[in-house]
């Protein structure tokens, strides 16, 4: 039973990171029906910028408690600027193009961002270790401060995003644009600006997710956004793409499925497959959802599109 709860904690931690990234996919899809496959790489950029800035600041003698939040803010600024630029340069000219064009552009962008990152940071693995050795042992279930930090910050950010979308005038404009961009313009909404803001918001969340990934795993690499992006996309589809709440539940659920799968696959298959097969579960879920319930858990009419 301890394994179960341990994997549940691990899964929720991982899942909350997926959820933050999935929100970026789902927001952009909700507002312009585009799958921004470069979004996973935004997480990588956020991660590596945070990592580098923390090292630089630590080298200058800034205490970690200050260096880490400062680095995160720096990474968020970089990602927000990059997200804005990508929308402006790569997607806006394709607003009236067939839907395949922006999709291919997204895949191309993803490659460009990865290769530029490889030039800047090299192709090796960069380490990032936070000096937190303390763990809490709750009846055999080990919880680390990093896990609680990841979970707490994710929940706070998700709550903040829901508040923004549901209660502020920007959120109202985002929902109006998602539901009917033409009428939104007739009502005086500069929909191009709203779309820009959507990219900027999603990119800021991706930067935070980037910090969480390097803090949790302790390493970063220019390709780290690829698999993470695919899984977050899976989470968004699982929850119902376009739905904010769906992205959150989809992310958490996917994380838990993956962790439990990794925890038990060895026992179930008699040691034939090990936990290194954990990535398989996400894609089994994706295939299952697409075949049996393509609108996702909260997709279609129930979901709140952005």
């Amino acid at each position: 039973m301890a394994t179960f709860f341990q994997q549940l904690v691990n899964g929720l931690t991982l899942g909350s990171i997926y959820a933050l990234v999935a929100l970026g996919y789902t927001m952009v899809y909700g507002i312009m029906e585009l799958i921004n496959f470069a979004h996973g790489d935004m997480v990588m950029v956020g991660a590596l910028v945070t990592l580098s800035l923390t090292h630089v600041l630590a080298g200058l003698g800034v205490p970690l408690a200050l260096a880490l939040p400062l680095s995160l803010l720096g990474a968020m600024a970089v990602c927000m600027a990059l997200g804005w630029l990508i929308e402006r340069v790569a997607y806006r000219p394709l607003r009236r193009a067939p839907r395949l064009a922006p999709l291919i552009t997204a895949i191309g962008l993803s490659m460009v961002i990865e290769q530029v990152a490889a030039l800047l940071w090299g192709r090796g693995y960069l380490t990032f270790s936070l000096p937190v050795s303390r763990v809490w042992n709750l009846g055999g279930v080990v919880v680390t401060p990093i896990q609680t930090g990841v979970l707490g910050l994710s929940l706070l950010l998700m709550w903040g995003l829901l508040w923004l979308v549901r209660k502020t005038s920007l959120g109202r404009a985002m929902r109006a644009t998602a539901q009917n961009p033409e009428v939104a313009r007739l009502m005086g909404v500069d929909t191009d600006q709203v779309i820009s803001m959507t990219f900027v918001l999603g990119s800021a969340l991706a930067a935070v997710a980037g910090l969480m990934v390097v803090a949790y795993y302790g390493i970063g690499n220019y390709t780290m956004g690829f698999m993470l992006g695919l899984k977050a996309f899976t989470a968004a589809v699982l929850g119902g793409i376009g739905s904010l709440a769906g992205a959150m539940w989809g992310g958490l659920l996917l994380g838990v499925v993956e962790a439990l799968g990794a925890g038990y696959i060895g026992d179930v298959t008699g040691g034939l497959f090990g936990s290194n097969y954990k990535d398989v579960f996400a894609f089994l879920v994706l295939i299952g959802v697409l075949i049996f319930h393509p609108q996702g858990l909260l997709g279609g009419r129930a979901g709140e599109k952005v």
Partner: protein
Amino acid sequence: MTILLDIAGLSVCYGGIKAVAEVDLVVHEGERVALIGANGAGKSSTLKAVAGLMVPSSGQLLYDGTPLERLAVWQRVGAGLCLVPEGRGVFPRLSIEENLLMGAWHRRRDAGVLSDMERIYGLFERLKERRLQPAGTLSGGEQQLLALGRALMSRPRLLLLDEPSMGLAPLMVEKVFDVIRAIAGSGVTLLLVEQNARLALELCDRAYVMESGKVVLTGKADECLRDARVQEAYLGGDQS
């Protein structure tokens, strides 16, 4: 009277076909102008060109003396020009209240927004009762009233109405036109596109009749009502 909207030689192409051909149309401040004609005559396209949803292939659009091409679609409502689109275009998953607030988007920091909303709730009791429900749950007629209320929230100078009676039950059409009459009575200038020619002509001061993209007749609304050709084509023959 000052000219508020001046359309000169407007042509609009739609997939290679000229939907509007060389239309001249003038709306004076405070006037109610009807644009009538059969389905596909180019009425809606004319209105959409004014709102900016369609780009004219030629011609000049002046609003309050300013060329409209200088204003993006979303900037026009701020200048006082508001279109209630065909099919109403309410935001189905926004609440009724949020829909109304969207109408006041360009003046969202204005303290008058809330009092305007109360005023509109005064006009439409039904909307107030259900203000927190999604607009998609309203009936077609109620959605049309909401679309009108939303347009009023923008404090328009020139209100463009595209087929407000379309798809509504007769009783609801009457209600919608009562509201339109009240709006016009409050001094808002009106350009009304309507297939129900009798309703439009009875409400308006002047009218333009369009046929296959061209203006074929223009004059005072009551004269149009008596015009033999209009009666024949749009008012169902020998009524007088």
